[in-house]
């Protein structure tokens, strides 16, 4: 089956998309979170009339501006890649992506860019309240931008509210609200945005801690730490809550990803969660089975995470490959067979379109039959793997396992750090705890690591699917030369490195200037 596909092209295209997406995501969370933190600080200034808060607001607004400017439009490269490297995918999902992305372009982008100008240029030129409203609207616009693209991503993980048109090979939106308000989309948006708030808070805390360590701008630093830690604490609690919701959605809609996150080979009731584990070697005879030389488990916790019931059966990789009749789980072979039927029906329907109207009508009707869609079309993508090694339908389990576990571990570390920062910040004892200030400085880079690990868990864990169960990456990629992709991959690496150095240099220079001289 796979002789028709250039696997090296798929790998390079995936690598390039991962590089650009991860780079883009270095800027987005700070923009999302810092926009709200700045709005909170300005609100305090407007409420109290205290000029010190204005200075604090302006400093963080400048940091926000630098990050926004360097990061702006880095996401556009992803859209370029859709059209060139993933043209078949773009066509397949076109109608579903069109609506959310168009709304993003019209509403959020214009809202954001208009009010950003007032935010930066409007001090002393517009009323305090109008300026404050602009700052809040900038924050709202930034967060709304994230909403639409996350809805599109959620649809790829859990395609709902759509109907496949076999004449055009495009998915058409049937119900906008099913797409926009699917539990996957809601959890994804809230989880992503709340962890962005945590990242921004930790950046605020790190920079403020640096000022305290340098023994300068003490009042500014202490006040920033209190605002940052309160906001970050709310953010991390929301992140944990929505992470729990996301886990339940993954369990329902992407069981292979769920099993891979825990490297769970054999399914079980009362399944344990690995609190700490080190993976060993892969069993050559059993795809997806890894040994665990070190493993500390929490009994029943994985079952509880899956459905809030510690006795729930969690299917393992083996159950998902071989099937499990007791738990009504189809084997990969059965899904491949059904997917193959769906692909061949599409092929025959196309061939009959101009030659045999009766046959065309009969086959076309299948794509309108809900039972046939459920029994066959729902497994469309599996058809490409008929007769192949089941390992081709597994994600990179080791990468998914470590990404997920490190992300969770860091999340709970952030909770502790934010809690201590708040307690010592409110009690005005933080300046004397030098060791903790250094911890705060080094926690900010960890926040970036955690947020990227979240995306790696979500995206590597769902491989090989570009659209869950319907379109694998091998069929989504365009027929272009792998060398072209390699050239642009290295071009991006070079450009992104230069831009990142520019950002860090400008950002550090501005931080060193401090709140007194922070300009626009």
């Amino acid at each position, binding site marked *: 089956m796979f002789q028709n596909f250039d696997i090296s092209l798929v790998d390079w295209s995936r690598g390039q998309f991962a590089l650009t997406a991860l780079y883009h995501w270095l800027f987005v969370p700070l923009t999302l979170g810092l926009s709200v933190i700045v709005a909170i600080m300005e609100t305090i200034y407007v409420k109290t009339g205290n000029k010190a808060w204005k200075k604090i607001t302006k400093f963080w607004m400048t940091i926000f501006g630098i990050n926004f*400017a360097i990061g702006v*439009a880095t996401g556009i490269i992803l859209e370029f890649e859709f059209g060139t490297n993933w043209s*078949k995918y773009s066509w397949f999902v076109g109608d579903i992506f069109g609506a959310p992305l168009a709304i993003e372009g019209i509403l959020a982008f214009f809202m954001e860019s208009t009010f950003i100008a007032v935010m930066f240029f409007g001090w002393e030129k517009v009323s305090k309240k109008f300026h404050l409203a602009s700052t809040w609207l900038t924050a709202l616009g930034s967060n709304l931008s994230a909403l639409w693209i996350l809805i599109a991503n959620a649809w790829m993980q859990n395609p709902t509210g759509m109907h496949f048109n076999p004449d055009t090979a495009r998915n058409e939106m049937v119900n906008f609200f099913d797409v926009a308000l699917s539990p996957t989309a809601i959890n994804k948006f809230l989880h992503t945005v709340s962890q962005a708030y945590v990242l921004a808070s930790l950046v605020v805390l790190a920079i403020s801690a640096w000022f305290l360590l340098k023994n300068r701008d003490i009042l500014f630093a202490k006040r920033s730490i209190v605002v940052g830690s309160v906001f970050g604490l709310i953010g991390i609690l929301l992140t944990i809550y929505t992470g729990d919701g996301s886990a339940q959605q993954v369990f329902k809609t992407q069981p292979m990803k769920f099993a891979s996150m825990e490297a769970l080979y054999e399914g079980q009731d009362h399944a344990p969660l690995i609190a700490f584990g080190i993976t060993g070697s892969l069993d050559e005879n059993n795809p997806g089975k890894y040994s665990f030389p070190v493993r500390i488990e929490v009994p029943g916790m994985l079952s509880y995470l899956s459905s809030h019931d510690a006795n729930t059966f969690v299917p393992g990789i083996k159950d998902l490959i071989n099937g499990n009749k007791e738990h009504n789980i189809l084997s990969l072979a059965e899904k491949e067979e059904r997917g193959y039927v769906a692909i061949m029906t599409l092929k025959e329907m196309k061939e009959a379109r101009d030659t045999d109207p009766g046959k065309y009508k009969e086959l076309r009707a299948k794509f309108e039959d809900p039972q046939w869609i459920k029994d066959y079309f729902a497994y469309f993508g599996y058809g490409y793997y008929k007769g192949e090694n089941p390992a081709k339908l597994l994600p990179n389990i080791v990468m998914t396992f470590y990404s997920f576990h490190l992300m969770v571990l860091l999340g709970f570390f952030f909770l502790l750090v934010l809690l201590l920062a708040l307690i010592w910040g409110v009690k005005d004892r933080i300046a004397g705890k030098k060791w903790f200030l250094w911890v705060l400085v080094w926690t900010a880079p960890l926040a970036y690591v955690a947020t990227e690990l979240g995306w790696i868990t979500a995206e590597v864990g769902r491989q090989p699917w570009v659209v869950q169960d319907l379109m694998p990456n091998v069929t989504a990629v365009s027929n272009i030369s792998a060398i072209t992709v390699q050239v642009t991959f290295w071009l991006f690496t070079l450009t992104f490195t230069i831009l990142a150095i520019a950002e860090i240099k400008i950002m550090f220079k*501005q931080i060193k200037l401090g709140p007194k001289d922070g300009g626009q």
Partner: protein
Amino acid sequence: MRNFLIKVFRFYYNGFRSMTVGRKLWVIILIKFFFMFAILKLFFFPDLLKKNFSSDRERSNYVIESLTQIK
């Protein structure tokens, strides 16, 4: 209306003129946009389906053929 537009123009004009670090950022943004749209988009990232086919029907046929090209 004319006064309002003049006010808006002056607001942006004075805002841009009084920028400090913002000027450097604008230079970076403009270089980035040039690189993206005048180099990347033009030479490396054509919209393949738009470029290679003249109608949606042709594009659909091509994608269906690709999706059903299995043994």
